[in-house]
């Protein structure tokens, strides 16, 4: 087991270096705007540009630049500096991680609880009106784009512009540490929007997988033992049906941590996604590079966590 984990971690590292190389090629090698000129802003004399080139090592060869970049990254976690504010990208990202984490983790709780709950009820009453209504709304939610859904809930429920003014709207986010209650209420709408589509997918997945599991021989065995139907479904059935959910849960969280751009933008939440969005509109490449790298890191970590979790969930995986 330990060897398995170490092997997965090493592979993750290799993958990360490949991603870094790709990013380097994309932002430094391929012809884009000259970073030194962007950094220089309005004071563009050849002398200043040459100075900037020298300070940031842009006059060195590309392999040397890549080596420097890697060294900075792995030894000092240095992600470079914003072209515009000159602030370290590391700091910019670090200040925004908590907002994104709040949004994604809270959203994940909402979508797992509702998705799994609705899925179980639908599976146990497959074909009923309740089942058809749930699966119908699931289809609508899966199809609805996040930004559209975000605008709709703001229009309906936001305390400033809504038809029924019950929840704080866009731009109301405050940190957990400064005001927990406000933090919670300001995130209710974003959580719902982030969770909607994914919850719908999970509900359909759990429904299908539970219906299949309930036909297994070991479910018959569990019933033959004289267990209550509740225990048969929630312990024996769900234990098997939940596996595919764990797989995609890790990946969904990983992906969303790196790219909750739309929801953060619609609700004006100062997270990584919004930072990235602003950086893209200003061609602030170091920030884009940093956030994309962070997204890749989240996805790689999520993959490793999923693989390890799977080994714990399915004892048959551990030994093969």
């Amino acid at each position: 087991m330990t060897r398995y984990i170490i092997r997965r971690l090493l592979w993750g590292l290799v993958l990360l270096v490949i991603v870094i190389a790709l990013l380097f090629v994309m932002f430094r090698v391929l012809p884009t705007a000259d970073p030194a000129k962007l950094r220089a802003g309005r004071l563009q004399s050849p002398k200043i540009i040459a100075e900037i080139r020298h300070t940031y090592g842009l006059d060195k060869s590309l392999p040397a630049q890549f080596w420097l970049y890697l060294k900075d990254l792995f030894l000092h976690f240095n992600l470079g500096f914003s072209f515009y504010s000159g602030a370290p990208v590391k700091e910019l990202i670090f200040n925004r991680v908590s907002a994104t984490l709040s949004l994604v983790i809270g959203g994940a709780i909402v979508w797992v609880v509702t998705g799994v709950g609705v899925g179980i009820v639908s599976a146990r009453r497959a074909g009923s009106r309740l089942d058809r209504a749930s699966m119908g709304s699931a289809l609508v939610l899966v199809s609805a784009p996040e930004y559209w859904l975000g605008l709709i809930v703001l229009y309906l429920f936001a305390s400033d512009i809504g038809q029924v003014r019950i929840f704080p709207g866009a731009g109301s986010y405050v940190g957990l540490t400064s005001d927990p209650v406000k933090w919670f209420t300001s995130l209710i709408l974003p959580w719902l929007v982030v969770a909607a589509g994914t919850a719908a997918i999970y509900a359909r997945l759990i429904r299908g997988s539970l219906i299949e599991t309930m036909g297994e021989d070991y479910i018959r065995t569990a019933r033959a033992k004289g267990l209550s139907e509740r225990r048969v479904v929630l312990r024996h059935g769900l234990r098997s049906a939940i596996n595919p959910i764990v797989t995609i849960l890790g990946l969904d969280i990983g992906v969303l941590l790196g790219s909750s751009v739309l929801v953060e933008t619609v609700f004006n939440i100062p997270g990584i996604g919004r930072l990235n969005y602003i950086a893209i509109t200003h061609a602030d490449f170091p920030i884009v590079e940093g956030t994309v790298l962070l997204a890749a890191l989240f996805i790689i970590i999520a993959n490793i966590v999923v693989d390890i979790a799977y080994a714990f969930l399915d004892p048959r995986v551990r030994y093969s």
Partner: protein
Amino acid sequence: MSEPLLRVEDLHVEFPTEDGVVHAVDGISYEVERGQTLGIVGESGSGKTVSSLTTLGLTRTQGARVSGRILFEGKDLVALPDAELRAIRGNEIAMVFQDPLSSLHPFFKVGSQLIEAVRAHQDVSKAAARARAIELLGLVGIPDPEKRVDHYPHEFSGGMRQRAMIGMALANEPKLLIADEPTTALDVTVQAQILALLERLQRELGMAIVIITHDLGVVAEMANEIAVMYAGRIVETASAEEIFAGPEHPYTWGLLKSIPRLKGRRDEALTPILGTPPSLIRRPSGCHFHPRCPYAQPDHARIDPQLQPVAGESEHHVACLLESQLRRRLWAELQQGATPEQAREALGLPPPPEQFERVASVAAGAAQGSGGTVGPAPEIGL
């Protein structure tokens, strides 16, 4: 005579489906005495598994329509509310299934599945239940039970898994154990071990056993009584000795003649039963076996035979339209090594009307929705 442990009376089990009603069990009755063994024998789809699942109420979740009575110690299990039935399930009546790999939950340790079975009916601590689980694994002959209790099903061999399943069934010392094809998924050598284990446990614990199988060889040694099922009905029932010494139903003959015997000549041909089991949605008219019976006569497609006592043997019943004397002479011919055709000719019995064979294949075709294709009945056997 005292009340038997289990008495099934005129049990019907039907499943409504889109294609029509499946008559899985069609009015069967049998009894199991305390400490005795009943063997229920038949091909796949003869209703033997459904009837025993119904005993435990396990067909309720599948939308089955059940009528008749299943009296267990005087309580009618058909009419019992779910909660009361659950208290009997796995406690007084336990069941062992065919495939031990798919019947054990792959994600739970064998021990925890046994502990769950114990704690489902006994209010004991986890530690006590665990001790009982280890004891049970030892009882069913699993070596090193203290270690094995923490293993997962996939770490057990097929025979060990079935032993663990049996151990789980014995968790609450049931009065009745239903074993549904307990050896079918196992190697031949392991089959014998499992049957020997069941016999030993029956002696030690004094429980009654209903063993369900398609293999008469399996029940030959174990069963006191044997019921032969065909198309949802019991077509012959007698003590094990009588079934083997003087079988009365052509279907039973077919089952017996398709078992290879060590005593027979090496070149003796096995005689398969022709055709396939009938659709339980559109069953053949008259005697359900007539399309496959080598001795069927024209009116057998019309008259529905009832289970009747065999002359001179009070415990032997058969549902067959052939004359009693004729049946005995046919069986005598078959025992001499004659094929069904030879036996028929020797006794001057006309062959079955030609359309009977077609009925068999049409019924099979209709079940697959292909309509009335006419062709020779397919052959099954070895």
